[in-house]
């Protein structure tokens, strides 16, 4: 089964309205979220709880001379004030390197770094206690220019270079007849999830702790928290609290250790909720990037060689920077056949806010650059930019610049063709509300120019470079009800719906119960990131259900003395193909059947010293066509329409796929025209939703879904690829290119600011 679903703009119509795979089964948490009854982590409550709070460094770089908590601890209602020395176990944590301080000791390395934590009887008491702590800092000039980081004195014992990859592929001497060169820049984007960090820790008698927290990976959190608390991992139990969005920002620890320290110190449950401003300091952001490129091609448009030098600012701590730079480097040349490449990817440490995971993970930055280069090259060749892309786009069997051959599906040409062939519904607006400037009434139609452009991109799915990537799931079938246990973090992607669909598909059950995600009941599900959970935890659930199915059929065959081969599971019945045996599921499972499994994807391998190796499992392609209106006089932009095609393997739930495509595109539009954490001297100037702008309904156009390309991916459950990240990769590049097409400006930087259009600036 293979094909392309061409759809109307609402996506794919459900097949039958049933509960199985391929249906738009509604989310069980959908109505509660919309009506306000869903319990997010900020709604956690305990009658005996205290409130926690965090004192943060006002300086991007300073030595801590002294901390005086004398006044704070004497305030009535204050139960604990804890510092660096109070951290019971490891003083540092981190996803890839344990380099980030739980609480600052001798130095602070970024604005907002936690210095002290407080527990008190009321949020107001917490605030007063935090105000009463006196920290004497000796301010140090911050290192804020990533280009200077490698030569500057180290700001951390681990040094200022987090990772350098020098990828060399193919013949290094070749030169193209036509060359184009450019330098590009991407600003720092925030994940801007709606539910700020929050959680609650409850001490357990005998020395352990229960932590309820909104996160993307319970087990990785647990191991880091336990190490910092000096406890064995099983003494720390994490349960997923309602997650209000993640997008990468909940991969690193935030308040986790702080909450547990306060709870264990006071013997009371402790709750913490970050304010919006604090949240901007409390999680990592997307890496800002500076990227130099030179593309070489033959006169006929065949790519010959790509040279690139990528510099990502990792901020003060390593977080997932090593993996982000690997992605940026591996996918730097885009979804094209490039026989020769020299790509240097560097990520460094500075005193800017730490950067780490965000939807698209390194591929967003390079897609913006390589697609600008492809348009530049098309111009230099006098060639249609779509033709240029089609001539070079990757297909199954082609090699990446890492030397890896693509063995799975790679419908790059299909996403391009279906996207550009899709008719546009965009008309020219008269209503000023629909013109650039919107509610500000600044434009009349005469001031507006229109531009249109295409961008193509791709990205790896799941963890790479030899990581042992797996998920665990259990299925228990009892009295006809399937109970699934999996620690997969539901962060909005819809795993809770897929679990039901998968169990129904495999077991024919009507009722599926999903146990709360917890470290207590099952092994790791891995991270809800890298577009991996549908494949990995979906795969684990499928495998567990299949094992139960096999055992169930064996039991019925055994009990009724019939051939196993002749039995099927349909509509809540175990039946023989001959029709003479019909056993209902409820009675067949009065004695429960249980299976617990681990599911792994095909192994990957590290990159060698030339950045070569089979480092990735699978790839997903996408294309966006953007149509924009630009008010050149004021530099204001209205994105009029976005059309997309995406390589999805197989659609498991149409509504959820469309939701990912629309939401990802909105984040991409945001990065293209407005979303930026603005820094000056290492300080965030816009740590609020007043000034960190995300698209509103007037900024986000309809997303036309030209095609969901369904070519089932070998090895993936039901052939489905992850769909979460591609929409945010190509949308930014497409919108920026459309603004270029409208204005004729180079615009080498996103977000494109009004002044970049008016003054033709934005030079990287």
């Amino acid at each position, binding site marked *: 089964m293979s094909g392309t679903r061409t759809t109307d703009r609402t996506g794919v119509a459900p097949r039958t309205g049933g509960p199985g795979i391929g249906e738009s089964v509604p989310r069980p948490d959908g109505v509660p979220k919309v009506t306000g009854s869903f319990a997010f982590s900020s709604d956690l409550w305990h009658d005996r709880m205290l409130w926690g709070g965090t004192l943060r460094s006002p300086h991007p770089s300073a030595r801590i001379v002294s901390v005086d908590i004398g006044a704070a601890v004497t305030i009535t209602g204050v139960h604990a004030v804890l510092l660096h020395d109070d951290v019971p176990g490891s003083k540092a944590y981190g996803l890839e390197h344990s380099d980030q301080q739980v609480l600052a000791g001798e130095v602070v390395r970024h604005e907002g770094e936690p210095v002290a934590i407080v527990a008190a009887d009321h949020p107001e008491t917490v605030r007063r206690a935090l105000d009463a702590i006196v920290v004497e800092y000796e301010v140090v000039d911050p290192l804020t220019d990533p280009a200077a980081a490698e030569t500057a004195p180290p700001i951390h014992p681990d040094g200022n270079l987090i990772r350098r990859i020098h990828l060399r592929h193919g013949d290094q001497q070749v030169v193209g007849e036509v060359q184009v060169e450019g330098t590009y820049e991407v600003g720092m984007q925030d994940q801007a999830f709606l539910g700020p960090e929050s959680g609650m820790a409850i001490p357990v008698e005998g020395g352990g702790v229960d932590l309820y927290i909104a996160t993307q990976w319970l087990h990785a959190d647990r191991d880091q928290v336990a190490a910092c608390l000096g406890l064995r991992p099983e003494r720390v139990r994490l349960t997923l609290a309602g997650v209000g969005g993640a997008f990468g920002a909940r991969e690193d620890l935030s308040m986790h250790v702080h909450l547990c320290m306060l709870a264990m110190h006071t013997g009371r449950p402790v709750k913490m909720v970050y304010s919006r401003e604090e949240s901007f300091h409390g999680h990592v952001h997307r890496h800002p990037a500076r990227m130099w490129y030179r593309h070489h091609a033959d006169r006929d448009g065949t790519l010959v060689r790509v040279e690139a030098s990528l510099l990502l600012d990792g901020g003060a701590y390593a977080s997932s920077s090593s993996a982000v730079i690997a992605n940026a480097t591996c996918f730097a040349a885009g979804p094209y056949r490039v026989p020769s490449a020299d790509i240097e990817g560097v990520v460094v440490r500075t005193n800017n806010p730490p950067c780490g995971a965000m939807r698209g993970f390194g591929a967003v930055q390079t897609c913006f650059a390589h697609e600008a280069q492809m348009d530049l090259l098309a111009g230099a060749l006098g060639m249609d930019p779509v033709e240029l892309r089609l001539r070079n786009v990757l297909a199954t069997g082609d090699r990446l610049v890492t030397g890896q051959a693509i063995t799975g599906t790679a419908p790059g040409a299909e996403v391009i063709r279906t996207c550009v062939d899709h008719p546009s519904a965009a008309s020219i607006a008269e209503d000023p509300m629909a013109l650039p400037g919107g509610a500000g009434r*600044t434009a009349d139609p005469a001031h507006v120019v229109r531009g249109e452009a295409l961008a193509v991109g791709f990205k790896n799915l799941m963890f790479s470079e030899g990581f042992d990537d797996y998920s665990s799931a259990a299925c228990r079938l009892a009295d006809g009800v399937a109970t699934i246990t999996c620690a997969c973090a539901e962060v909005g992607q819809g795993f809770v719906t897929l679990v039901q669909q998968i169990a129904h598909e495999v077991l024919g059950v009507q009722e599926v119960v999903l146990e709360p995600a917890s470290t207590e009941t099952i092994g790791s599900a891995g991270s809800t990131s890298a577009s991996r959970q549908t494949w990995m935890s979906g795969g684990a659930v499928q495998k567990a259900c299949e094992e139960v199915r096999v055992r169930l059929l064996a039991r019925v065959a055994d009990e009724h003395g019939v051939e196993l081969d002749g039995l099927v599971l349909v509509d809540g019945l175990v039946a023989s193909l001959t029709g003479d045996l019909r056993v209902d599921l409820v009675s067949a499972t009065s004695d429960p059947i249980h299976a617990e499994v681990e599911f792994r994807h095909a192994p990957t391998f590290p990159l060698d010293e030339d950045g070569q190796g089979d480092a990735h499992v699978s790839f997903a392609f996408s294309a966006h066509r953007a149509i924009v209106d630009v008010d050149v006089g004021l530099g204001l932009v209205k994105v009029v329409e976005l059309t997309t095609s995406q390589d999805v393997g197989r659609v498991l739930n149409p509504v959820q796929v469309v939701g990912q495509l629309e939401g990802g595109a909105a984040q991409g539009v945001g990065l293209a025209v407005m979303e930026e954490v603005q820094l000056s001297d290492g300080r965030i100037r816009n740590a609020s939703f007043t000034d960190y702008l995300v698209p509103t309904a007037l900024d986000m156009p309809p997303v036309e879904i030209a095609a969901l390309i369904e070519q089932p991916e070998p090895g993936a459950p039901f052939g489905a690829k992850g769909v979460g990240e591609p929409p945010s990769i190509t949308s930014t590049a497409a919108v920026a290119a459309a603004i270029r097409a409208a204005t004729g400006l180079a615009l080498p930087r996103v977000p494109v600011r009004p002044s970049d259009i008016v003054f033709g600036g934005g030079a990287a």
Partner: protein
Amino acid sequence: MTIATSLEDACCALASHPDALVLAGGTDLMVAVNRGDLPVHHVVAIGRVPELRGWRREGDHVRLGAALTYTDLLQPDLAVLQPALAQAARSVGSPQIRNTGTLGGNVATGSPAGDTIPVLAALDAVLELRSASGTREMRLDEFVTGVKRTALEGGELIEAIRVPVLDGPQEFCKVGTRNAMVISVVSLALVVDRSGRTVRVGLGSVAASPLRATEAEAYIGGHLDWDGGRPPSAEVVDRFTELVVGATSPIDDHRGSARYRRHAVGVLAGRALARAVGAA
């Protein structure tokens, strides 16, 4: 906390708690309180004071109660009398903010980016201030004395704002880096008074306090064809926008550079004038 149900109530409560905070819609106040910028001792809520919630026409003026919301300002029978104010109200925030935020709150906050401020400045609005000890009147430019600084005294509130009903087109435009729900980078109100033969221009986010482009106003007033209705020449428009730009003293901040603000205010001036009186 006092929830006042009459003007009398509100003034009494304010008199007995001179350090009280006046709470109208709370869309500015609560942001400051939550940020920890404003110590709260006592609050006098005025949102349920009927005298502050209405408006009426008084001869050639309209008297607007200070607690009118943006949604109130958008009602057609009022919007037709005060079109620029309605346009500004529509540009504010989201529906939730427009249903809650008030005209008096916008003025009393005294932010250079307050969207009604340039309109009220262009209209030469007069504020009626009231306290337990009496009433006084003040022009808007006397009232807002700096960035978020006003001449409001302890125990006093804004009761009403009086604006003239003018014969002529009005335009309000606002530049922001998002198409809605955005704080202005630059804003401009241009109102034409045909009977007085004046064009008045109020500017937002380009100076510390409410700003009129008086030279530009005088220039364009003298160069319009008031009787024939011919649109001004390109040279006249250029000179006008130049004078508008010259009136400003913008700053660089995270929302925009001074250079961009100067440029944008000139563009807005030209466009607003063209909409109001046509372009050659």
